[in-house]
């Protein structure tokens, strides 16, 4: 019997420190057994459970896109026991990963639609996966206009800076990078909170879906902006976080009403959330 | 069993007993090498959890030493600690978690290198007499 709790062994291929506060690192993982990579076939929006023997497991969004082959990446914020240990691990060390877990962004519905991506802080990981997926030459024609509003407190806290710069240069994706404030006179992008920048850039709601991921306070103030812009609740998509253990809808802790965030989520539309208790 | 050497954790306060250990060292005083020192800011810093953690991890003895009452660097840290130690030792022995002879306390000032070495010998001797600890070591959990 296939054991859904058993992690696939992976080797840390590289570790990149993403932010100037050194609290976010991206781990590039390579499967020890090639067949495990096939079993780990995922879709942007899903998450994996990272396993560190001796410490425990943590659920983390998959930052890579399935269009990138040979490795998977996870960007991990240092908060607790497992993540603190993980931050001290080095390339070459062995750990584990389980998954892919949960549902994904509704790519079938997004086909032929404009996509507005709104992200804040370190919740940008599965959005990065989605952007890479959509702008892949094989996929780009399936989607309409792509707008990205991505903000962080400061320049140094933005994730994936090299890629952001590259996307800025492309014509098939509209980037709106913003920081809460900047003391850098050479800062060439936006300054201001994500909700304000969203309102200012006013991406059209016509034929569009919005995907929003970020700290609760950002989501709270951005949702009214999206409504103003004309996005109905069924076209606003968000991804939730929850404390998780099993990741497969068995251990019982991540429910919101009848729904398990790990299995029935983490991706929900605003319309779905409206029918559930506000307990997240 | 003949080559068994006891493992002993000593929690020494930074200002007195750690200084005494230092003095014993520079004075080339001899005492058995079974003691692993953990320096704490004050004997008042000792939490019962530390002592239980040491025994859970398999040490054979624990020794806590601080400044003489009245000489605490923080004025009264060891005076509070004193009450804690009195209850802790009796309770550990009452519940059978620690057998007599495994847990030791002392007050040693930084000038008392000789007393430190002497106490170290006494602690080691007493733990040797108690034998290897067996009952409160966290082993692989007994689970299904």
């Amino acid at each position, binding site marked *: 019997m296939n054991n*859904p709790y058993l992690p696939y062994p992976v080797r840390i291929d590289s570790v990149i420190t993403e932010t100037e506060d050194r609290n976010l690192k991206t781990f590039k993982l390579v499967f020890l057994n090639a067949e495990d990579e096939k079993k780990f076939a995922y879709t942007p929006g899903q998450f994996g459970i990272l396993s560190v023997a*001796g410490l425990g497991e943590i659920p983390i969004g998959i930052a890579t896109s399935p269009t990138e082959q040979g490795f998977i990446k996870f960007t991990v914020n240092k908060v607790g026991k497992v993540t603190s240990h993980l931050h001290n691990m080095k390339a070459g060390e062995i750990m584990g990963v389980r998954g892919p877990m949960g549902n994904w962004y509704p790519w079938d519905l997004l086909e032929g639609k404009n996509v507005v991506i709104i992200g804040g802080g370190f919740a940008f990981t599965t959005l990065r996966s989605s952007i890479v997926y959509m702008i892949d030459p094989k996929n780009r024609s399936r989607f309409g206009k792509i707008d990205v509003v991505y903000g962080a407190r400061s320049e140094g806290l933005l994730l994936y800076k090299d890629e952001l710069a590259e996307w800025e240069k492309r014509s098939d994706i509209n980037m709106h990078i913003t920081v809460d404030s900047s003391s850098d006179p050479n800062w060439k992008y936006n300054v201001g909170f994500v909700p304000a920048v969203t309102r200012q850039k006013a991406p059209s709601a016509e034929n569009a879906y919005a995907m929003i991921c970020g700290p609760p306070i950002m989501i709270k103030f951005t949702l009214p902006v999206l409504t103003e812009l004309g996005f109905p609740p069924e076209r606003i998509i968000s991804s939730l976080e929850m404390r998780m253990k099993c990741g497969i809808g*068995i*251990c*019982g*802790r991540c429910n919101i009403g009848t729904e398990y965030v790990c299995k029935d989520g983490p991706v929900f539309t605003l319309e779905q959330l409206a029918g559930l208790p506000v*307990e997240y | 069993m003949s080559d068994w050497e006891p493992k002993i954790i000593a929690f020494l306060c930074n200002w007195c007993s750690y200084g005494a250990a230092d003095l014993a060292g520079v004075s080339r005083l001899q005492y058995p090498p079974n003691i692993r020192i953990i320096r704490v800011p004050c004997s008042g810093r000792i939490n019962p959890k530390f002592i239980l953690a040491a025994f859970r991890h398999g040490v054979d003895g624990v020794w806590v030493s601080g400044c003489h009452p009245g000489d605490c660097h923080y004025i009264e840290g060891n005076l509070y600690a004193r009450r804690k130690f009195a209850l802790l030792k009796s309770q550990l022995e009452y519940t059978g978690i620690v057998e007599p002879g495994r847990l030791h306390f002392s007050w040693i000032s930084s000038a008392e290198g000789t007393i430190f070495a002497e106490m170290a010998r006494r602690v080691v001797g007493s733990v040797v007499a108690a034998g290897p600890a067996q009952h409160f070591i*966290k082993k692989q*959990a007994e689970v299904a």
Partner: protein
Amino acid sequence: MPDIYYTAKENFAGVIERLMGRYRVYAPVKEDRCHGFAPLRSAAEADLGFSNTRLSPKGLFHPQAERMFEYSLAKDDPQAGIVKEAQKDFSPRVVLGVRPCDAKAFDLDDANFNTETIKDPWWVRRRETTTMIGLACDSPCSTCFCTSMGSGPYDTAGLDVLLVDAGEGYAAEVLSEKGKNTLEVTSGWSPVTSAILPLTHKKKAAEQSIGIAFDPAAIAKKPMLELYNSPTWEEVQFACINCGACTFVCPTCWCFDIQDEVCGDKGERLRLWDSCMFPLFTLHGSGHNPRSQKTQRVRQRFMHKLKYYQDKYNSGPACVGCGRCVQACPVNIDIRQVGRQMVSQGCSCPA
């Protein structure tokens, strides 16, 4: 072959012994003040004269602590850090003397552990390799309310065989192929050709001695958010001290935690019972806790059992009416009372 067999009580020890020759046999054993399921070392240890066990038999399938995996952390071990399956004994076993309410709980828990897409390997293996021999209940406790929860003192759900105390002996109703095979290897049973009328009376008498607690179907009909936002939770939660007694004694509470433990250079991944009553259950790494308040946790427990489960699986509640939580709660929070409050909520008349 008929479906009902009979053996005299004086032969029953022999039956157990023959079972023990083929299976690992678990049965209620008298502990200090109460009964608990334990592996039998001798037939005489089994004591079927119990009202119910203090802990439900769920631990036999979902142990309070279970070794899921093990691994080496030795520096020179090339396999270090690779998590591997732990060896377990899945040889066939019999659980003897399960009360019908507890047996039904396994059916309910299957909805969680054994689904189309995801199967919990340990739960499923144990369910497959275990024959459940139930014992009908003739003297229900004052806290029992199985009949309100779609079960009953003679319910056969989740069982392979149901034993009924027939005075001088036991009648055994065979309910599955597995049950049939198990009885066959024990011998000592003689087929009963006609229905035993007194047993039907006993069944009725047992059922009638249990009062109606509340109607879970009425809860199923109410909108989830109306129940969730009900002011009743404020009153229900006051007494709760947020211990895990109710959840740990409950046969249908399956929630678990996963923890790593290290001993020297060996480690293991364990899964252990957890409780939605504990604040830590939902605490995020960031410090945020979606159920930081006692009211939220108390509501979660009752809503999960009586509402969410019904909605999610389109079935009855995740409660079998064994009454253990009523007995174990230090502050007398009574699920029957809470159920009634949930039913009457929104209605102008007091329940």
